[in-house]
Structures are given as C-alpha cells and as structure tokens.
C-alpha cells in the first residue's frame, strides 16, 4: 500500500482500524485497571474485617479557653457579627488605640421608639 498517496478506500480503512485499535487498547487497559481496583477493594475489606473499628468513644467535654491575647467573649444583641466588627474597628480608629488593647463586653442595637 502506498502510504504517502493514500487512496480514499485505504484512508477510510486506516481511519476505521485506528479507531478500533484505540478502543481495543483502552478496553484492555480498563480491564487491567478494574482488576487492580477489585484486588484493592477486596484487600481493604479483608483488612477492615481483621481490624474492626472500635465503637466511637464519646469525646471529653473540654471547656474552651479564650484564645491568648483576647479579652473574652463579646455578647451581641440584635447585631450582626459584620456590623459588630465594623463598629469595633470604627471605635478603635476613633480612639487611636489598637483593637487588641480594647475590651468590648457587649454591643446592642438601640432601636428608635
């Protein structure tokens, strides 16, 4: 077959053969990969059966300590955390003090009567 000046029939034949070869190669690879996966899944199941997972123990209740450098909890009444953060930043800026040197105890929205 002249591979340089291919006839239309030869070109069609090579195209079909090529697509089949790609499929064949991929199908064979898929089977090998599936076999690998099965072996691995079976191995994992065997290991799981040999080493059963112990019943979950209720975790110890730990009272959270305040993070170092913080001034404790801040109570918010009818205020979004986002608004509270903005208020604290504005106060710190107005006072000219760093935020970590100020202690906010609570922020409450004052509603108009």
């Amino acid at each position, binding site marked *: 077959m002249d591979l340089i000046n291919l006839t239309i029939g030869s070109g069609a034949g090579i*195209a079909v053969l090529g697509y089949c070869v790609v*499929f064949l190669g991929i199908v064979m690879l898929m089977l090998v990969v599936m076999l690998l996966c099965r072996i691995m899944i079976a191995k994992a199941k065997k290991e799981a059966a040999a080493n059963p997972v112990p019943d979950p123990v209720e975790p110890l209740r730990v009272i959270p300590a305040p993070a170092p450098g913080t001034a404790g909890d801040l109570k918010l009444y009818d205020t979004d955390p986002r608004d509270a953060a903005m208020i604290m930043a504005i106060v710190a800026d107005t006072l000219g003090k760093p935020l970590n040197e100020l202690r906010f105890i609570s922020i409450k929205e004052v509603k108009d009567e």
Partner: protein
Amino acid sequence: MDILGTLQKLATESGFAAFFLTAGGWKNLVMIIISFVLLYLGIAKKFEPLLLCGIAFGCLLSNLSYFIGMGENALYHPELWQQFLVDHSYGNVMRHAGLLDFFYIGVKAGIYPSLIFLGVGAMTDFGPLLSNPKSLLLGAAAQLGVFVAFFGAILLGFTGPQAASIGIIGGADGPTAIFLTTKLAPELLGPIAIAAYSYMALIPLIQPPIMKLMTTEKMRVVKMEQSRPVSKTEKILFPIIVATFVILLLPATAPLIGCLMLGNLFRECGVTDRLSDTAQNALMNIVTIFLATSVGATMTGDNFIQPQTLYIILLGLVAFGISTAGGLVGGIIMYRTSGGKINPLIGSAGVSAVPMAARVSQDVGRRYNKSNFLLMHAMGPNVAGVIGSAIAAGFLLSVFGG
C-alpha cells in the same frame, strides 16, 4: 570612505527593504501582523497565554530575521531543516544554526513534548479515573475526531503522514500534536500547533452548543453518585501498570506514555516530592518557553501562507467538534446502559484538553442543575483522553512513521 555606498548597503540589507526586495518578503510582513494578533489573543484574551505568547513571539522573531536569500543572520533557518530531512545530520544544523534552530532541535528530537508530558503527569490526579475505570471508554470514544479529520484530510489531497498529523489535532493535546507532526509532517508544524492550541483555548465556546444539541435536558440534570475513595497503593501502581501495558501494546507511544507515567509516579509515590515539584513547575516552565518559541519560529511567511493552512485550520475545527460529539455519544450510551445514572455531559471531557474540557462539563451541568457537581466525574474521561490521544498518536506513528 564611501559613505553613500555604506548607507545604501545598510538600507538594502535591512529587514525593511527585504519586505519588498526579496521573493515573498511581503509574506513576512503578513506573518508579523499575524504574530501581533496572536500576541493580542494570548495577552488580552488569555487564549492559552503560556503557549500562545511564546509561539507568537517566536513567529515574530523568525519573520523579522529570516528572508529568502538573506538568511545568514537569521535566528531560524527553514532550509537547514529541509536539508535535515535528506541527510539527517544535526552536525550540518549545528554548523549554521541560529538561536531558534538550537531551540528547535528539542522539538525535532521529540524532547520537549515528552518533557511536557512528564510535567502533565506530575500535575495529574488519576484518582477520578481509578474510582470509575469505565470512564476510560469515554477517553477512547472522544478520539473519533482524530480519525474523521484524518479521512477528511485524505479527501482534500493531503499525503498520508500529513493527514495523520492534521487528524491528531482532534486529540486536543498540544504536545502530542507537536510530537507526531514533527515526526511525520514537520512542514506543517506551525499551522497544526496554532490550530491545536487555539481550539483548545476555544473549547468553552466550541463544546457547549454541541453538548446542548446532542443531549436532552433530562440527561443534563442527572446527578452522579459520589465516587469511591482511591487508595494510595492504587495510585502508585497505576502509572507502572499503564506504562508497562500501553508501551508493550504500542511501542511508538513510549516517549509520551513513558514520560506521562514517570511524572505521575513522582507525584504519587510519596518519596520524590522534590522531583514532582520540579517536573510540575520549573521544568515545565522552562520547556514551555523553548517549545513555544521554537514552534512559533517555524511559522515563516513562505511556509505558513499557503492554501493548506486554511484547510488545516478548518479540519482542526472539524476534528474538535467530532471528538466532542464522539465523547458525548459514548456518554449517552453509558447513560442508557447505566439506567440514567451517568450524566452524558462528562463524555465531552474525553477530549484530552485537561482540565478545560472537564470544567466545561461542570459549567454546562450546573447551568441545568445548580446543585450538580460533575467536575470530578468529568476528570476521569478527561485524563483518559490524554492516554487515548497518545494511543491514537502511537497508532498513526506506527503506520506512517516507518
């Protein structure tokens, strides 16, 4: 001292004069304008910028410095590489080479595409493919465009090796296209590389209309089950098994598959993190610079401005479209055989442009079902496409490379 004579010599030897005084000099001017357009697309439109910027600038440099009959100061010499096809002598190239000729040796010897594959392997997680091995079939189905475009090129009068190089554009894999074209039809390298990378960048525009056309809304909204977790051992064994199996099956794929899987082994084995990092980043970036500029350099006016360039651009688009359709047909078959559990949109990701094609599947899927996450499911066929296009290239190289 003959000042006038010197000035006249400088003027006639300048590139400005060469545009109008040498045979085909106007083509250089056209190519310079094309390089500006490509730079614009790469920088402003972000079309595969890492490659397109280098390709465009390589094109600019070679068309600024090489004019037929005035090539002694050029950075790239096409006639040296035509001679190489006859005598296969790197010695002759080295004696007369310009800077970009030296860069091009890495393309010609198949070094850069293979090293790019090493980096791609180091960046790729084959976990989604391992968790659903059937998705490999979609990577095969999406190679349909390669062989349809190959046949189309034969109908348009291209030779067998040229048609094979044009067809591989449908694999949507730049390094594979460059690798195969350099071996089979180096005279077409510029247009094929431009077509491959341009269409890869245009995947988000090319694929969605085809996906919409070929699937129903009921298919597009399918939510797929979560994939099973893949163990570390499987991920380590996978590159070793694929390299062994595929290279034994098709030895011509050895440079590409070998490097792809070596890179992946570096990534997964857990003891070569430094090598994996180098392959993914530094090496990949260095090779990309050399690859892009030297491929761009092959786009000399005389070589690029040909009617066949238009055919290649057109056939490349056909190849991309049909590959997408092939993947979708595979996806639809899997949708039907699985009783509607597989979303056929993941089939279009079987073209190997990683991860762009998988992202398109995700985007189109979410357009029809906001809570649908197809990305990881689409990554399986996507990386399978890389293997599929390497096998297709290996087949074509086996047939036409002898």
